[in-house]
């Protein structure tokens, strides 16, 4: 099957016990890292937006900001692919509970923040980005489907793309359904090959099949069990270990095979 080639110019990460890819590498080496703040700082957002933004927006903006800063790119020039398996589950819980008890009292702000593209909407407003932007989901395969879409944009449009994959923890009766017990977010700036500094070159190929089970040290296994966005660890762990291959699910019967090369 045909393949795609992109370079990874920046990576962001926010997990229960790690901030950024360097923390992940230390955890994999058995070194303790400082726990991140309870609330993602999301420094890219203007202060007034940061105060009122729902958790899904803060998490996405935090990891996006890390990745863009590392890439050295202007955020306004990056097409945006934001993926989340469940959207803002706190707002879904609020909406459904309010609709069940007092439907005419739904908050207009919570309603417009409930759209799946709220994080990318706030991000593009904060960064002044007029490029194509999208919000996707694909159950447990949101990371692979989003990476495939981002790589397609890079290859077809020859432009840099910001990929964000994040889910917040669930609250209320939906917890039993969604199984999100913790927050996890990651972001990558992916771009066509160029002379710019990069973290890795990534070759992608699609093939039928399943990527198989993962076996990672604590706490990574708990992240993966507790948040669908943590399926991104299927690429992040090999990147942190400077491994040469990775596999992730791009759909229920479709696997994304990845080859990794690192600059000297």
């Amino acid at each position: 099957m045909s393949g795609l080639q992109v370079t990874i110019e920046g990576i962001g990460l926010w997990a229960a016990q790690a901030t950024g890819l360097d923390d992940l590498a230390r955890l994999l080496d058995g070194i303790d890292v400082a726990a991140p703040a309870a609330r993602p700082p999301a420094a890219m957002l203007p202060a007034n937006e940061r105060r009122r933004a729902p958790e899904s927006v803060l998490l996405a903006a935090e990891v996006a900001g890390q990745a863009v800063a590392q890439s050295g790119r202007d955020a306004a020039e990056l097409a945006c692919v934001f993926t989340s398996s469940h959207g803002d589950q706190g707002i879904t819980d609020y909406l459904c509970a309010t609709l069940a008890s007092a439907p005419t009292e739904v908050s207009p702000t919570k309603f417009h923040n409930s759209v799946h593209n709220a994080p990318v909407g706030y991000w593009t407003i904060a960064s002044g980005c007029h490029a194509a932007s999208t919000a996707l989901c694909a159950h447990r395969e949101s990371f692979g489907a989003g990476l495939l879409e981002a790589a397609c944009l890079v290859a077809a449009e020859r432009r840099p793309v910001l990929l964000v994959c994040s889910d917040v923890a669930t609250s209320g009766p939906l917890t039993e359904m969604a199984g999100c017990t913790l927050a996890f977010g990651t972001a990558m700036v992916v771009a066509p090959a160029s002379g710019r500094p990069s973290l890795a070159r990534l070759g992608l190929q699609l093939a039928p099949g399943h990527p198989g089970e993962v076996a990672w040290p604590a706490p990574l296994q708990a992240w993966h069990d507790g948040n669908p966005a943590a399926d991104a660890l299927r690429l992040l762990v090999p990147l942190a270990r400077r491994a040469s291959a990775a596999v992730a699910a791009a759909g229920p019967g479709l696997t994304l095979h990845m080859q990794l090369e690192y600059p000297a």
Partner: protein
Amino acid sequence: MPDRIAPLAVSAFTTTSALGHGLAAHAHALAGEVSGLRPNDISSAPLPCWIGRVDGVEDAPLPADLAGWECRNNRLAWLGLGQDGFLARVEAARTRYGAHRIALMLGTSTASIGATEEGYRRLDADGRLPADLRRPAIHAPHSLSAFVAEALGLQGPCLTVSTACSSSAKVFANAERLIRLGLADAAVVGGVDTLCDSVLFGFNALELVSPEPCRPFDARRRGISIGEAAGFALLERVDAAPGAPQLLGYGEATDAHHMSTPHPEGLGAELALREALARAGLAADQVDYINLHGTASLKNDEVEAALVGRAFGERTRASSTKGLTGHTLGAAGILEAVLTLLALRDGVVPGNAGVQTPDPACGASFAWQTERRELRVALSNSFGFGGNNACLAFARGGATA
């Protein structure tokens, strides 16, 4: 501006909305300006407004082997897939290309959240969703595409686009990239959104819902009427279906202005339009018809009328069809893409239904009544919350061969 792309064949398409099930009902309603709007009879508590409700969804359960996906949104998807021989066309494509080589890209705004809402109305004594609704796959926004993938037996790239009211327009772009890059040979695109409390009471809270049937581009318009719809299209390379209508191009752009209000100068909408024309290799004066987003909200129609006025001459005809269907939100992109394809096929410019007094801001392009003329090239606009804009360009079957 982006480079010109090779067109794709739209080798099969169908839609189901308040206007009826399948293409014939829609062509009939377009030609006669027959509205499908009715007084709201679906919300769980009273809300005086008008809706575009699809008849028969309640009487169309899913087949037994798909029963785990039961909910109104997936029922409407299945009802829609069953029209116009679409299932057989997908089956033929699957035989020709293989299940792994057909992408499935669907748009939805709220997917099956109606089932989640119902669960919250019927929480059990322990505060859990009732047992019959404890089905995790329907309580996530990918419910629609995962259901359709299983129903159609497709195993290629599969995702859900959820960018509010531009969702099921943008899927044409996702699919075009996959086919251009050789990652798929064909794609099923489309979208489904169903009426539910979230959207009725949510848009009501934003004071965007009209108490009367919506009147897009009317000087005294009072807001939107919400509808529901399903629509699907099969995209293939042109040589696989040489006489079929074609997707010529698309544009996607972002306002970077406000979560629920369009950019006052229509910046993102105009960028999406210019990109669509560039990918299609068209000049504005080659466009015969534009199906407008035209929601009947004060701001959208003001901004969009100004864009039509500055980008097109009067030979380009323009209208909104939401006075017939209501605003079907995440399904609006595919519903209106199909209505645009019907306009091209039949040589019918749909009249801008619902208007009593045209807004004086609307220029000579606006078709206030149905017109019959040869149409070769047409656009469809779809704009969503978060400043998310999409524009699609289509050609009539045989028009560009």
